[in-house]
């Protein structure tokens, strides 16, 4: 496929379709890294990914349904931090607030290791002129309005994304 402008910078087009903490990282990391390399970047936020455009982010991670998730503690001695706790599924499912606890621990672990927060990465994307596009159809389905999302984002549909992606060098669905 020939680009209409051969001198145009490289372009990355991403679809962010999930709204959990673990799935929020890949699109924002790739978008900010590409922006830092001088690429044009557009991210289309659809379905649960659309919630990543809310002003206050409440992303959570759930160990339920993620059996590969390491269950480690972000404090204590190195030996203690390296223990992968074998927590039974029954317990994770039935203890109220388990997701909130797992989310708090994971955020703490990320902070300890020097990983930027989702909020920081999203702001970095905005600073690098990454286009953040919210899905109109998802808004209609879940009853969201324009004012529920950050003012910097655009709203568009499948055609908007496809036109942008058709001239992209890298396209990924996340």
């Amino acid at each position, binding site marked *: 496929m020939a680009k209409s402008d051969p001198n145009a910078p*490289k372009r990355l087009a991403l679809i962010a379709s999930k709204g959990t903490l673990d799935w929020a990282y890949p699109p924002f990391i790739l978008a900010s*890294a590409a922006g*830092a*390399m*001088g690429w044009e970047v557009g991210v289309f936020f659809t379905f649960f990914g659309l919630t990543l455009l809310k002003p206050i982010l409440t992303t959570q991670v759930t160990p339920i349904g993620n059996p590969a998730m390491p269950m480690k503690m972000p404090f204590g001695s190195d030996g203690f931090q390296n223990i992968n706790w074998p927590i039974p599924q029954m317990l994770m499912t039935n203890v109220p607030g388990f997701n909130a606890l797992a989310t708090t621990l994971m955020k703490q672990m990320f902070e300890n290791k*020097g990983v*930027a927060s989702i909020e920081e990465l999203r702001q970095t994307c905005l600073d690098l002129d990454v286009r953040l596009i919210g899905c109109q159809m998802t808004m209609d389905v879940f009853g969201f309005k324009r004012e529920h999302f950050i003012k910097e984002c655009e709203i568009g549909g499948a055609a908007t994304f496809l036109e942008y992606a058709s001239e992209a060098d890298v396209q990924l669905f996340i």
Partner: protein
Amino acid sequence: MVDVIKEDQILDCSGMLCPMPVVKVSKAIKTLEIGQILKMFATDPGAPPDMEAWSRQTRHELMYSTQENGKFVFFIRRLK
């Protein structure tokens, strides 16, 4: 070699993980004049390959990279 190159600005990305070192470098390089040199420190083991990729993509020159006191050190020249 490290002592020969004279940097114009220093950026410390110690403790930061991907993608922050390349993000910080891309911001810092814009504050330099063309031809000036940025010295960057990082501890992320992913930084050496990422800085090489960043340099190829942005066409800024990764002049020299080494390790110093357990840290990765990069010298980058703004080319455009």
